[in-house]
Protein backbone atom coordinates (compact mmCIF):
# COMPACT_ATOMS: atom_id res chain seq x y z
CA UNK A 1 0.00 0.00 0.00
CA UNK A 2 2.99 2.22 0.40
CA UNK A 3 2.92 2.64 -3.34
CA UNK A 4 -0.70 3.66 -3.44
CA UNK A 5 -1.39 7.29 -3.92
CA UNK A 6 -3.01 8.62 -0.85
CA UNK A 7 -3.42 12.13 -2.08
CA UNK A 8 -7.18 12.42 -1.78
CA UNK A 9 -7.08 11.30 1.81
CA UNK A 10 -4.05 13.29 2.73
CA UNK A 11 -5.07 16.23 4.95
CA UNK A 12 -1.72 17.91 4.47
CA UNK A 13 -2.12 18.19 0.73
CA UNK A 14 -2.89 21.76 -0.32
CA UNK A 15 -5.07 20.58 -3.22
CA UNK A 16 -6.85 17.92 -1.26
CA UNK A 17 -10.16 19.81 -1.72
CA UNK A 18 -11.10 17.66 1.28
CA UNK A 19 -12.52 15.12 -1.16
CA UNK A 20 -14.26 12.13 0.23
CA UNK A 21 -14.28 11.01 -3.40
CA UNK A 22 -13.61 7.44 -4.22
CA UNK A 23 -10.75 7.20 -6.69
CA UNK A 24 -11.93 7.01 -10.30
CA UNK A 25 -9.19 4.56 -11.17
CA UNK A 26 -7.67 2.17 -8.72
CA UNK A 27 -4.94 -0.14 -9.92
CA UNK A 28 -3.65 -2.71 -7.46
CA UNK A 29 -0.91 -5.29 -7.70
CA UNK A 30 -0.80 -5.07 -11.46
CA UNK A 31 1.92 -7.00 -13.30
CA UNK A 32 2.56 -7.74 -16.93
CA UNK A 33 4.91 -10.35 -18.27
CA UNK A 34 5.78 -11.16 -21.83
CA UNK A 35 7.06 -14.52 -22.93
CA UNK A 36 9.99 -14.34 -25.29
CA UNK A 37 11.40 -17.27 -27.18
CA UNK A 38 15.18 -17.62 -27.21
CA UNK A 39 16.65 -17.56 -30.70
CA UNK A 40 17.21 -21.08 -32.14
CA UNK A 41 15.87 -22.72 -29.04
CA UNK A 42 12.57 -23.86 -27.58
CA UNK A 43 13.51 -22.20 -24.33
CA UNK A 44 11.28 -19.33 -23.34
CA UNK A 45 12.22 -16.42 -21.14
CA UNK A 46 9.77 -14.34 -19.19
CA UNK A 47 10.26 -10.61 -19.60
CA UNK A 48 8.57 -8.50 -17.00
CA UNK A 49 7.27 -5.12 -18.20
CA UNK A 50 6.14 -3.98 -14.75
CA UNK A 51 5.43 -5.63 -11.42
CA UNK A 52 3.07 -5.09 -8.55
CA UNK A 53 1.99 -1.62 -9.60
CA UNK A 54 -0.64 0.12 -7.52
CA UNK A 55 -1.93 3.60 -8.11
CA UNK A 56 -5.05 5.71 -7.79
CA UNK A 57 -6.37 8.55 -9.90
CA UNK A 58 -9.06 10.79 -8.44
CA UNK A 59 -11.84 12.52 -10.36
CA UNK A 60 -10.69 15.80 -11.87
CA UNK A 61 -7.06 15.29 -10.91
CA UNK A 62 -3.84 14.54 -12.68
CA UNK A 63 -1.44 11.78 -11.81
CA UNK A 64 1.90 11.97 -13.57
CA UNK A 65 3.84 8.81 -14.18
CA UNK A 66 7.51 9.51 -14.67
CA UNK A 67 10.49 7.28 -15.32
CA UNK A 68 13.13 6.52 -17.88
CA UNK A 69 12.28 4.81 -21.13
CA UNK A 70 11.95 1.09 -20.71
CA UNK A 71 10.64 1.50 -17.17
CA UNK A 72 7.32 -0.01 -18.25
CA UNK A 73 5.23 3.17 -18.37
CA UNK A 74 3.74 2.62 -21.80
CA UNK A 75 2.98 -1.04 -21.16
CA UNK A 76 1.19 0.01 -18.00
CA UNK A 77 -0.76 2.65 -19.93
CA UNK A 78 -1.82 0.11 -22.54
CA UNK A 79 -3.00 -2.28 -19.85
CA UNK A 80 -5.02 0.43 -18.13
CA UNK A 81 -6.54 1.45 -21.47
CA UNK A 82 -7.49 -2.23 -21.84
CA UNK A 83 -5.47 -2.61 -25.01
CA UNK A 84 -3.48 -5.41 -23.43
CA UNK A 85 -4.36 -7.81 -20.68
CA UNK A 86 -2.19 -7.62 -17.58
CA UNK A 87 -0.85 -10.89 -16.16
CA UNK A 88 -2.05 -10.36 -12.62
CA UNK A 89 -3.67 -7.66 -10.53
CA UNK A 90 -6.79 -5.58 -10.52
CA UNK A 91 -7.98 -2.52 -12.45
CA UNK A 92 -11.02 -0.87 -10.97
CA UNK A 93 -12.82 1.98 -12.68
CA UNK A 94 -15.35 3.71 -10.45
CA UNK A 95 -15.41 0.60 -8.28
CA UNK A 96 -15.92 -1.91 -11.08
CA UNK A 97 -13.31 -4.60 -11.62
CA UNK A 98 -12.59 -4.33 -15.34
CA UNK A 99 -10.53 -7.48 -15.63
CA UNK A 100 -13.48 -9.60 -14.54
CA UNK A 101 -15.47 -8.45 -17.56
CA UNK A 102 -15.54 -10.18 -20.92
CA UNK A 103 -15.09 -8.47 -24.27
CA UNK A 104 -18.75 -7.73 -24.69
CA UNK A 105 -19.24 -6.37 -21.18
CA UNK A 106 -16.13 -4.24 -21.62
CA UNK A 107 -17.39 -2.62 -24.82
CA UNK A 108 -19.56 0.12 -23.22
CA UNK A 109 -16.87 0.79 -20.58
CA UNK A 110 -14.17 1.49 -23.15
CA UNK A 111 -15.61 4.95 -23.69
CA UNK A 112 -14.63 5.91 -20.13
CA UNK A 113 -10.89 5.53 -20.72
CA UNK A 114 -9.29 7.12 -23.75
CA UNK A 115 -5.70 7.43 -24.75
CA UNK A 116 -3.60 10.10 -26.45
CA UNK A 117 -0.35 9.02 -28.05
CA UNK A 118 3.09 10.52 -28.40
CA UNK A 119 3.23 10.92 -32.15
CA UNK A 120 0.02 12.53 -33.41
CA UNK A 121 0.88 11.80 -37.04
CA UNK A 122 0.78 8.05 -36.62
CA UNK A 123 -2.08 8.23 -34.16
CA UNK A 124 -4.54 9.49 -36.78
CA UNK A 125 -5.85 7.42 -39.67
CA UNK A 126 -4.31 9.13 -42.72
CA UNK A 127 -7.20 8.08 -44.93
CA UNK A 128 -9.94 9.82 -42.96
CA UNK A 129 -10.85 13.49 -42.79
CA UNK A 130 -10.69 15.48 -39.56
CA UNK A 131 -14.44 15.22 -39.11
CA UNK A 132 -14.46 11.47 -39.76
CA UNK A 133 -11.60 10.92 -37.33
CA UNK A 134 -13.45 12.63 -34.50
CA UNK A 135 -16.77 11.00 -35.37
CA UNK A 136 -15.22 7.53 -35.64
CA UNK A 137 -15.41 6.65 -31.90
CA UNK A 138 -19.09 7.64 -31.92
CA UNK A 139 -19.65 5.44 -34.95
CA UNK A 140 -17.82 2.53 -33.33
CA UNK A 141 -19.88 2.90 -30.19
CA UNK A 142 -23.03 3.15 -32.30
CA UNK A 143 -23.95 6.61 -31.11
CA UNK A 144 -26.26 9.04 -32.92
CA UNK A 145 -27.09 9.46 -36.58
CA UNK A 146 -24.58 10.57 -39.17
CA UNK A 147 -25.56 14.28 -39.04
CA UNK A 148 -25.56 14.16 -35.23
CA UNK A 149 -22.08 12.68 -35.18
CA UNK A 150 -20.85 15.31 -37.60
CA UNK A 151 -22.35 18.11 -35.53
CA UNK A 152 -20.66 16.72 -32.43
CA UNK A 153 -17.35 16.40 -34.29
CA UNK A 154 -17.51 20.02 -35.46
CA UNK A 155 -18.36 21.16 -31.96
CA UNK A 156 -15.36 19.23 -30.61
CA UNK A 157 -13.09 20.76 -33.22
CA UNK A 158 -14.04 24.22 -32.02
CA UNK A 159 -13.66 23.10 -28.43
CA UNK A 160 -10.03 22.07 -28.92
CA UNK A 161 -9.25 25.21 -30.88
CA UNK A 162 -9.48 23.96 -34.44
CA UNK A 163 -11.42 25.74 -37.16
CA UNK A 164 -14.40 23.54 -37.96
CA UNK A 165 -14.24 24.80 -41.54
CA UNK A 166 -11.25 22.46 -41.87
CA UNK A 167 -13.40 19.38 -41.32
CA UNK A 168 -12.58 17.96 -44.76
CA UNK A 169 -8.84 18.14 -44.37
CA UNK A 170 -6.82 14.99 -43.76
CA UNK A 171 -4.31 14.71 -40.88
CA UNK A 172 -1.45 15.39 -43.26
CA UNK A 173 -2.72 18.89 -43.88
CA UNK A 174 -2.55 19.85 -40.22
CA UNK A 175 0.52 20.92 -38.25
CA UNK A 176 1.92 18.82 -35.40
CA UNK A 177 0.15 20.83 -32.71
CA UNK A 178 -3.11 20.78 -34.65
CA UNK A 179 -2.85 17.03 -35.07
CA UNK A 180 -2.49 16.59 -31.34
CA UNK A 181 -5.59 18.79 -30.90
CA UNK A 182 -7.36 16.52 -33.36
CA UNK A 183 -6.31 13.48 -31.31
CA UNK A 184 -7.60 15.18 -28.16
CA UNK A 185 -10.92 15.98 -29.84
CA UNK A 186 -11.23 12.32 -30.87
CA UNK A 187 -10.48 11.17 -27.34
CA UNK A 188 -13.13 13.55 -25.98
CA UNK A 189 -15.82 12.42 -28.42
CA UNK A 190 -17.06 9.69 -26.10
CA UNK A 191 -16.98 11.96 -23.02
CA UNK A 192 -14.46 9.81 -21.16
CA UNK A 193 -13.72 10.20 -17.49
CA UNK A 194 -10.06 9.22 -17.71
CA UNK A 195 -7.56 10.36 -20.33
CA UNK A 196 -4.26 8.56 -20.57
CA UNK A 197 -1.65 10.85 -22.11
CA UNK A 198 1.27 8.71 -23.21
CA UNK A 199 4.10 11.23 -23.71
CA UNK A 200 1.46 13.30 -25.47
CA UNK A 201 3.54 16.47 -25.34
CA UNK A 202 7.02 15.19 -26.10
CA UNK A 203 6.73 15.46 -29.87
CA UNK A 204 5.65 19.09 -29.71
CA UNK A 205 7.73 22.24 -29.58
CA UNK A 206 7.81 24.30 -26.40
CA UNK A 207 5.18 26.79 -27.54
CA UNK A 208 2.78 24.03 -28.54
CA UNK A 209 3.46 22.16 -25.31
CA UNK A 210 2.29 25.15 -23.33
CA UNK A 211 -0.76 25.67 -25.55
CA UNK A 212 -1.80 22.02 -25.34
CA UNK A 213 -1.22 21.97 -21.59
CA UNK A 214 -3.50 25.00 -21.25
CA UNK A 215 -6.11 23.30 -23.39
CA UNK A 216 -5.90 20.14 -21.27
CA UNK A 217 -6.22 22.17 -18.06
CA UNK A 218 -9.31 23.94 -19.44
CA UNK A 219 -10.87 20.66 -20.50
CA UNK A 220 -10.09 19.12 -17.12
CA UNK A 221 -11.82 21.96 -15.34
CA UNK A 222 -14.80 21.94 -17.68
CA UNK A 223 -15.46 18.19 -17.68
CA UNK A 224 -13.90 17.13 -14.38
CA UNK A 225 -11.57 14.89 -16.36
CA UNK A 226 -8.92 12.75 -14.74
CA UNK A 227 -5.54 12.49 -16.39
CA UNK A 228 -2.93 9.80 -16.17
CA UNK A 229 -0.05 11.67 -17.71
CA UNK A 230 2.99 9.66 -18.68
CA UNK A 231 6.04 11.77 -19.15
CA UNK A 232 9.78 11.84 -18.76
CA UNK A 233 9.85 15.63 -18.52
CA UNK A 234 9.92 16.56 -14.84
CA UNK A 235 9.78 20.26 -15.59
CA UNK A 236 6.44 19.82 -17.34
CA UNK A 237 5.21 17.46 -14.64
CA UNK A 238 5.84 20.08 -12.01
CA UNK A 239 3.50 22.42 -13.86
CA UNK A 240 0.42 20.30 -14.20
CA UNK A 241 0.42 17.21 -12.00
CA UNK A 242 -1.37 16.94 -8.67
CA UNK A 243 0.52 13.78 -7.82
CA UNK A 244 3.55 12.05 -9.24
CA UNK A 245 4.39 8.37 -9.34
CA UNK A 246 7.98 7.52 -10.14
CA UNK A 247 8.55 4.30 -12.03
CA UNK A 248 11.89 2.56 -12.02
CA UNK A 249 12.65 -0.83 -13.53
CA UNK A 250 9.02 -1.85 -13.73
CA UNK A 251 8.07 -0.81 -10.21
CA UNK A 252 6.61 2.33 -8.72
CA UNK A 253 9.30 3.40 -6.27
CA UNK A 254 7.79 6.59 -4.98
CA UNK A 255 4.41 8.18 -5.28
CA UNK A 256 3.19 11.34 -3.63
CA UNK A 257 1.93 14.88 -3.95
CA UNK A 258 3.93 16.80 -6.58
CA UNK A 259 5.14 19.54 -4.25
CA UNK A 260 6.25 17.00 -1.67
CA UNK A 261 8.05 14.94 -4.24
CA UNK A 262 9.99 17.93 -5.42
CA UNK A 263 10.85 19.13 -1.94
CA UNK A 264 11.51 15.88 -0.14
CA UNK A 265 12.25 13.02 -2.52
CA UNK A 266 12.93 9.72 -0.76
CA UNK A 267 13.99 7.14 -3.27
CA UNK A 268 17.51 7.45 -4.70
CA UNK A 269 16.20 7.25 -8.27
CA UNK A 270 13.81 10.12 -7.63
CA UNK A 271 16.67 12.18 -6.26
CA UNK A 272 18.69 11.38 -9.32
CA UNK A 273 15.81 12.45 -11.56
CA UNK A 274 15.37 15.71 -9.68
CA UNK A 275 19.05 16.48 -9.78
CA UNK A 276 18.90 16.30 -13.53
CA UNK A 277 16.35 19.07 -13.64
CA UNK A 278 17.95 22.45 -13.38
CA UNK A 279 16.73 24.92 -10.80
CA UNK A 280 13.77 23.02 -9.49
CA UNK A 281 13.28 25.63 -6.85
CA UNK A 282 12.81 28.40 -9.34
CA UNK A 283 10.13 26.42 -11.10
CA UNK A 284 8.37 25.79 -7.83
CA UNK A 285 8.63 29.46 -7.00
CA UNK A 286 7.11 30.30 -10.33
CA UNK A 287 4.38 27.83 -9.71
CA UNK A 288 3.36 29.14 -6.35
CA UNK A 289 3.52 32.73 -7.63
Amino acid sequence: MQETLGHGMNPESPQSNSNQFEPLLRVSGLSKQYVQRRPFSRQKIVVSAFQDVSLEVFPGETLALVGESGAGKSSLARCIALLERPSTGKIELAGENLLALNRKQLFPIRREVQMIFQDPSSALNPRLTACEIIAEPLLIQGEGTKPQRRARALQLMEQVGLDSAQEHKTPLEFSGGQRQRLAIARALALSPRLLILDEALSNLDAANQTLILELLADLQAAHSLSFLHISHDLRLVSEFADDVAVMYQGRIVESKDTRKLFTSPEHSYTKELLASVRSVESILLERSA
Partner: protein
Amino acid sequence: MRYLARRLLHSMLLLLAVSIFSFAILQLAPGDFFTPLSVNPQISAHTVATLRSQYGLDKPFPIRYEHWLRSVFRGDLGLSFASGTPVAPLLVFRARNTLLLTGTSLLLAWMLAIPFGIWSAARRGKWTDRAGGVVTSSFLTIPDLVLFLALLLLAVRTGWFPTGGMMSARFDDLGVGGKVQDVAAHLFLPVVGLVLATLPPLVRHIRSAMIEVLEAPFVLAARAHGISERRVLLRYALPVAANPLITLFGYSIAGMLSASLLVEVVLSWPGVGPLLVDAILAKDVYVVVAAVMLSSVFLVAGNLVADALLFATDPRIRTEQIN
Protein backbone atom coordinates in the same frame (compact mmCIF):
# COMPACT_ATOMS: atom_id res chain seq x y z
CA MET B 1 -6.54 15.82 -64.53
CA ARG B 2 -3.26 17.58 -65.33
CA TYR B 3 -1.52 14.90 -63.28
CA LEU B 4 -2.89 12.12 -65.47
CA ALA B 5 -2.28 14.05 -68.70
CA ARG B 6 1.35 14.51 -67.73
CA ARG B 7 1.65 10.83 -66.93
CA LEU B 8 0.17 9.98 -70.33
CA LEU B 9 2.72 12.18 -72.13
CA HIS B 10 5.55 10.56 -70.18
CA SER B 11 4.26 7.16 -71.22
CA MET B 12 4.25 8.05 -74.92
CA LEU B 13 7.84 9.27 -74.71
CA LEU B 14 8.81 6.12 -72.85
CA LEU B 15 7.27 3.92 -75.55
CA LEU B 16 9.14 5.82 -78.25
CA ALA B 17 12.40 5.33 -76.36
CA VAL B 18 11.72 1.62 -75.90
CA SER B 19 11.07 1.20 -79.62
CA ILE B 20 14.33 2.91 -80.60
CA PHE B 21 16.23 0.95 -77.99
CA SER B 22 14.84 -2.47 -78.90
CA PHE B 23 15.38 -1.70 -82.59
CA ALA B 24 18.99 -0.74 -81.92
CA ILE B 25 19.66 -3.82 -79.78
CA LEU B 26 18.37 -6.11 -82.51
CA GLN B 27 20.74 -4.41 -84.96
CA LEU B 28 23.65 -5.46 -82.79
CA ALA B 29 22.78 -9.15 -83.05
CA PRO B 30 24.88 -10.82 -85.74
CA GLY B 31 23.08 -12.00 -88.87
CA ASP B 32 19.46 -11.62 -89.89
CA PHE B 33 16.50 -13.71 -91.03
CA PHE B 34 18.20 -14.43 -94.38
CA THR B 35 21.59 -15.46 -93.01
CA PRO B 36 20.68 -19.19 -93.05
CA LEU B 37 19.77 -18.80 -96.75
CA SER B 38 23.12 -17.29 -97.63
CA VAL B 39 24.97 -20.36 -96.38
CA ASN B 40 22.74 -22.61 -98.46
CA PRO B 41 24.80 -23.45 -101.62
CA GLN B 42 21.62 -23.91 -103.67
CA ILE B 43 20.62 -20.26 -103.24
CA SER B 44 22.69 -17.64 -105.05
CA ALA B 45 24.08 -14.64 -103.23
CA HIS B 46 22.13 -12.52 -105.68
CA THR B 47 18.81 -14.03 -104.62
CA VAL B 48 19.58 -13.42 -100.96
CA ALA B 49 20.61 -9.83 -101.71
CA THR B 50 17.36 -9.30 -103.63
CA LEU B 51 15.35 -10.69 -100.74
CA ARG B 52 17.22 -8.41 -98.32
CA SER B 53 16.54 -5.32 -100.37
CA GLN B 54 12.92 -6.41 -100.89
CA TYR B 55 12.41 -6.44 -97.13
CA GLY B 56 14.49 -3.28 -96.70
CA LEU B 57 17.21 -4.95 -94.68
CA ASP B 58 19.91 -3.32 -96.79
CA LYS B 59 18.83 0.18 -95.74
CA PRO B 60 20.60 2.06 -92.92
CA PHE B 61 19.13 2.01 -89.42
CA PRO B 62 17.33 5.41 -89.37
CA ILE B 63 15.51 4.69 -92.60
CA ARG B 64 14.42 1.27 -91.48
CA TYR B 65 13.24 2.75 -88.21
CA GLU B 66 11.29 5.37 -90.09
CA HIS B 67 9.66 2.69 -92.27
CA TRP B 68 8.75 0.73 -89.23
CA LEU B 69 7.30 3.80 -87.52
CA ARG B 70 5.13 4.45 -90.57
CA SER B 71 3.91 0.87 -90.49
CA VAL B 72 3.02 1.31 -86.84
CA PHE B 73 0.80 4.24 -87.73
CA ARG B 74 -0.71 2.17 -90.54
CA GLY B 75 -1.47 -0.40 -87.88
CA ASP B 76 0.40 -3.42 -89.23
CA LEU B 77 3.60 -3.19 -87.12
CA GLY B 78 5.93 -4.28 -89.93
CA LEU B 79 6.17 -7.53 -91.80
CA SER B 80 6.91 -10.97 -90.42
CA PHE B 81 9.59 -12.57 -92.57
CA ALA B 82 8.58 -16.06 -91.49
CA SER B 83 4.93 -15.83 -92.42
CA GLY B 84 5.10 -13.08 -94.99
CA THR B 85 2.14 -11.28 -93.40
CA PRO B 86 1.88 -8.08 -91.35
CA VAL B 87 2.82 -8.63 -87.68
CA ALA B 88 -0.23 -6.97 -86.13
CA PRO B 89 -2.94 -9.60 -86.82
CA LEU B 90 -0.49 -12.36 -85.89
CA LEU B 91 0.33 -10.72 -82.58
CA VAL B 92 -3.22 -9.66 -81.76
CA PHE B 93 -4.42 -13.25 -82.11
CA ARG B 94 -1.68 -14.54 -79.80
CA ALA B 95 -2.02 -11.65 -77.34
CA ARG B 96 -5.73 -12.39 -77.00
CA ASN B 97 -4.91 -15.94 -75.93
CA THR B 98 -2.23 -14.76 -73.53
CA LEU B 99 -4.57 -12.20 -71.98
CA LEU B 100 -7.26 -14.82 -71.51
CA LEU B 101 -4.73 -16.88 -69.56
CA THR B 102 -3.01 -14.11 -67.60
CA GLY B 103 -6.18 -12.09 -66.99
CA THR B 104 -7.90 -15.11 -65.47
CA SER B 105 -4.84 -15.98 -63.37
CA LEU B 106 -4.31 -12.40 -62.23
CA LEU B 107 -7.90 -12.04 -61.14
CA LEU B 108 -7.87 -15.37 -59.37
CA ALA B 109 -4.49 -14.75 -57.70
CA TRP B 110 -5.59 -11.39 -56.27
CA MET B 111 -8.99 -12.70 -55.23
CA LEU B 112 -7.22 -15.42 -53.25
CA ALA B 113 -4.27 -13.33 -52.06
CA ILE B 114 -6.27 -10.48 -50.48
CA PRO B 115 -8.39 -12.56 -48.10
CA PHE B 116 -5.51 -14.94 -47.39
CA GLY B 117 -3.07 -12.08 -46.71
CA ILE B 118 -5.56 -10.29 -44.45
CA TRP B 119 -6.35 -13.51 -42.66
CA SER B 120 -2.74 -14.33 -41.86
CA ALA B 121 -2.04 -10.72 -40.81
CA ALA B 122 -4.99 -10.91 -38.41
CA ARG B 123 -3.56 -14.14 -36.97
CA ARG B 124 0.07 -13.09 -37.01
CA GLY B 125 2.25 -15.25 -34.81
CA LYS B 126 -0.44 -17.91 -34.35
CA TRP B 127 0.23 -21.39 -35.68
CA THR B 128 -2.19 -20.97 -38.61
CA ASP B 129 -0.21 -17.92 -39.77
CA ARG B 130 3.07 -19.77 -39.36
CA ALA B 131 1.75 -22.75 -41.31
CA GLY B 132 0.67 -20.34 -44.06
CA GLY B 133 4.18 -18.88 -44.02
CA VAL B 134 5.71 -22.33 -44.49
CA VAL B 135 3.39 -23.05 -47.43
CA THR B 136 4.05 -19.71 -49.16
CA SER B 137 7.81 -19.92 -48.71
CA SER B 138 7.84 -23.49 -50.05
CA PHE B 139 6.09 -22.30 -53.19
CA LEU B 140 8.51 -19.37 -53.39
CA THR B 141 11.51 -21.68 -53.39
CA ILE B 142 10.19 -24.10 -56.01
CA PRO B 143 11.38 -22.88 -59.42
CA ASP B 144 8.46 -22.09 -61.72
CA LEU B 145 9.78 -24.48 -64.33
CA VAL B 146 9.69 -27.41 -61.89
CA LEU B 147 6.20 -26.41 -60.82
CA PHE B 148 4.91 -26.32 -64.40
CA LEU B 149 6.60 -29.59 -65.29
CA ALA B 150 5.06 -31.21 -62.21
CA LEU B 151 1.62 -29.99 -63.30
CA LEU B 152 2.25 -31.32 -66.79
CA LEU B 153 3.28 -34.68 -65.34
CA LEU B 154 0.16 -34.75 -63.16
CA ALA B 155 -2.08 -33.99 -66.12
CA VAL B 156 -0.43 -36.59 -68.36
CA ARG B 157 -0.46 -39.32 -65.68
CA THR B 158 -4.04 -38.80 -64.57
CA GLY B 159 -5.57 -37.63 -67.82
CA TRP B 160 -7.89 -35.35 -65.84
CA PHE B 161 -7.04 -32.25 -67.83
CA PRO B 162 -6.23 -31.71 -71.50
CA THR B 163 -2.60 -30.73 -72.04
CA GLY B 164 -1.51 -28.38 -74.77
CA GLY B 165 -3.46 -26.03 -76.99
CA MET B 166 -6.57 -24.12 -75.98
CA MET B 167 -9.28 -26.12 -77.68
CA SER B 168 -10.09 -29.68 -78.70
CA ALA B 169 -10.08 -30.94 -82.26
CA ARG B 170 -13.89 -31.18 -82.18
CA PHE B 171 -14.17 -27.52 -81.04
CA ASP B 172 -16.04 -26.35 -84.16
CA ASP B 173 -18.80 -28.92 -83.62
CA LEU B 174 -19.56 -27.74 -80.09
CA GLY B 175 -22.34 -25.38 -79.05
CA VAL B 176 -21.59 -22.07 -77.32
CA GLY B 177 -21.73 -23.61 -73.85
CA GLY B 178 -19.60 -26.52 -74.98
CA LYS B 179 -17.01 -24.18 -76.48
CA VAL B 180 -16.71 -22.20 -73.26
CA GLN B 181 -16.39 -25.42 -71.31
CA ASP B 182 -13.74 -26.72 -73.69
CA VAL B 183 -11.60 -23.58 -73.47
CA ALA B 184 -12.03 -23.53 -69.68
CA ALA B 185 -10.81 -27.14 -69.45
CA HIS B 186 -7.73 -26.28 -71.49
CA LEU B 187 -7.21 -23.10 -69.49
CA PHE B 188 -7.29 -24.90 -66.14
CA LEU B 189 -3.76 -26.26 -65.99
CA PRO B 190 -1.84 -23.14 -67.10
CA VAL B 191 -4.01 -20.97 -64.84
CA VAL B 192 -3.26 -23.18 -61.83
CA GLY B 193 0.45 -22.98 -62.69
CA LEU B 194 0.43 -19.20 -62.97
CA VAL B 195 -1.65 -18.70 -59.83
CA LEU B 196 0.67 -20.94 -57.81
CA ALA B 197 3.65 -19.00 -59.12
CA THR B 198 2.25 -15.52 -58.42
CA LEU B 199 0.19 -16.09 -55.27
CA PRO B 200 2.93 -16.54 -52.62
CA PRO B 201 4.69 -13.17 -53.06
CA LEU B 202 1.31 -11.42 -53.22
CA VAL B 203 0.18 -13.02 -49.96
CA ARG B 204 3.50 -12.09 -48.36
CA HIS B 205 3.22 -8.46 -49.44
CA ILE B 206 -0.38 -8.08 -48.35
CA ARG B 207 0.34 -9.73 -45.01
CA SER B 208 3.35 -7.55 -44.19
CA ALA B 209 1.67 -4.34 -45.38
CA MET B 210 -1.33 -5.13 -43.17
CA ILE B 211 0.79 -6.01 -40.14
CA GLU B 212 2.67 -2.75 -40.38
CA VAL B 213 -0.57 -0.79 -40.24
CA LEU B 214 -2.10 -2.99 -37.53
CA GLU B 215 0.71 -1.92 -35.20
CA ALA B 216 0.15 1.80 -35.81
CA PRO B 217 -1.06 3.90 -32.85
CA PHE B 218 -4.21 4.97 -34.70
CA VAL B 219 -5.28 1.33 -34.73
CA LEU B 220 -4.60 1.18 -30.98
CA ALA B 221 -6.72 4.31 -30.54
CA ALA B 222 -9.54 2.67 -32.47
CA ARG B 223 -9.21 -0.44 -30.33
CA ALA B 224 -9.55 1.77 -27.27
CA HIS B 225 -12.91 2.86 -28.71
CA GLY B 226 -13.94 -0.79 -28.85
CA ILE B 227 -13.68 -1.25 -32.60
CA SER B 228 -14.47 -4.70 -33.97
CA GLU B 229 -11.65 -6.76 -35.47
CA ARG B 230 -13.44 -6.87 -38.81
CA ARG B 231 -13.69 -3.10 -38.96
CA VAL B 232 -10.04 -2.69 -37.96
CA LEU B 233 -8.97 -4.96 -40.79
CA LEU B 234 -11.27 -3.68 -43.52
CA ARG B 235 -11.75 0.00 -42.74
CA TYR B 236 -8.43 0.85 -41.07
CA ALA B 237 -5.67 -1.52 -42.07
CA LEU B 238 -6.62 -2.36 -45.64
CA PRO B 239 -7.15 1.20 -46.98
CA VAL B 240 -3.97 2.46 -45.33
CA ALA B 241 -1.97 -0.57 -46.47
CA ALA B 242 -3.41 -0.26 -49.97
CA ASN B 243 -0.83 2.06 -51.57
CA PRO B 244 2.05 -0.38 -52.02
CA LEU B 245 -0.48 -3.05 -52.95
CA ILE B 246 -2.02 -0.88 -55.67
CA THR B 247 1.45 -0.28 -57.07
CA LEU B 248 2.02 -4.03 -56.95
CA PHE B 249 -1.27 -4.56 -58.78
CA GLY B 250 -0.04 -2.18 -61.46
CA TYR B 251 3.10 -4.26 -61.84
CA SER B 252 1.11 -7.43 -62.17
CA ILE B 253 -0.90 -5.82 -64.99
CA ALA B 254 2.42 -4.77 -66.50
CA GLY B 255 3.61 -8.36 -66.42
CA MET B 256 0.45 -9.76 -67.98
CA LEU B 257 2.06 -10.33 -71.39
CA SER B 258 5.44 -11.53 -70.17
CA ALA B 259 4.72 -13.39 -66.93
CA SER B 260 3.15 -16.29 -68.77
CA LEU B 261 6.00 -16.84 -71.26
CA LEU B 262 7.37 -19.88 -69.48
CA VAL B 263 4.02 -21.47 -68.69
CA GLU B 264 2.89 -21.00 -72.28
CA VAL B 265 6.00 -22.68 -73.65
CA VAL B 266 5.94 -25.58 -71.16
CA LEU B 267 2.20 -26.23 -71.31
CA SER B 268 1.89 -25.29 -75.03
CA TRP B 269 -0.58 -22.47 -74.65
CA PRO B 270 -0.78 -20.68 -78.02
CA GLY B 271 0.04 -17.24 -76.62
CA VAL B 272 2.68 -14.61 -77.24
CA GLY B 273 5.34 -16.68 -75.44
CA PRO B 274 5.91 -19.43 -78.03
CA LEU B 275 5.55 -16.87 -80.86
CA LEU B 276 8.25 -14.70 -79.31
CA VAL B 277 10.63 -17.61 -78.72
CA ASP B 278 10.26 -18.75 -82.35
CA ALA B 279 10.70 -15.20 -83.64
CA ILE B 280 13.87 -14.66 -81.61
CA LEU B 281 15.38 -17.93 -82.81
CA ALA B 282 14.54 -17.09 -86.44
CA LYS B 283 15.58 -13.41 -86.09
CA ASP B 284 12.15 -12.38 -87.28
CA VAL B 285 12.93 -8.87 -85.99
CA TYR B 286 9.63 -7.07 -86.48
CA VAL B 287 7.74 -9.77 -84.58
CA VAL B 288 10.23 -9.44 -81.72
CA VAL B 289 10.05 -5.65 -81.71
CA ALA B 290 6.25 -5.75 -81.82
CA ALA B 291 6.09 -8.22 -78.93
CA VAL B 292 8.51 -6.10 -76.88
CA MET B 293 6.47 -3.00 -77.69
CA LEU B 294 3.22 -4.66 -76.70
CA SER B 295 4.83 -5.72 -73.43
CA SER B 296 5.95 -2.14 -72.84
CA VAL B 297 2.47 -0.88 -73.58
CA PHE B 298 1.24 -3.17 -70.82
CA LEU B 299 3.95 -1.96 -68.47
CA VAL B 300 3.03 1.64 -69.12
CA ALA B 301 -0.69 0.88 -68.92
CA GLY B 302 -0.20 -1.03 -65.66
CA ASN B 303 1.64 1.89 -64.11
CA LEU B 304 -1.00 4.29 -65.39
CA VAL B 305 -3.78 2.18 -63.92
CA ALA B 306 -1.90 2.06 -60.60
CA ASP B 307 -1.38 5.83 -60.65
CA ALA B 308 -5.01 6.44 -61.48
CA LEU B 309 -6.11 4.13 -58.67
CA LEU B 310 -3.75 5.79 -56.19
CA PHE B 311 -5.00 9.17 -57.32
CA ALA B 312 -8.56 8.06 -56.76
CA THR B 313 -8.03 6.36 -53.41
CA ASP B 314 -5.37 8.39 -51.63
CA PRO B 315 -6.31 11.92 -50.57
CA ARG B 316 -2.62 12.65 -49.92
CA ILE B 317 -1.72 12.38 -53.61
CA ARG B 318 -4.60 14.64 -54.57
CA THR B 319 -3.60 17.11 -51.89
CA GLU B 320 -0.13 17.56 -53.25
CA GLN B 321 -1.59 18.65 -56.55
CA ILE B 322 -3.19 21.76 -55.07
CA ASN B 323 -0.09 22.95 -53.26
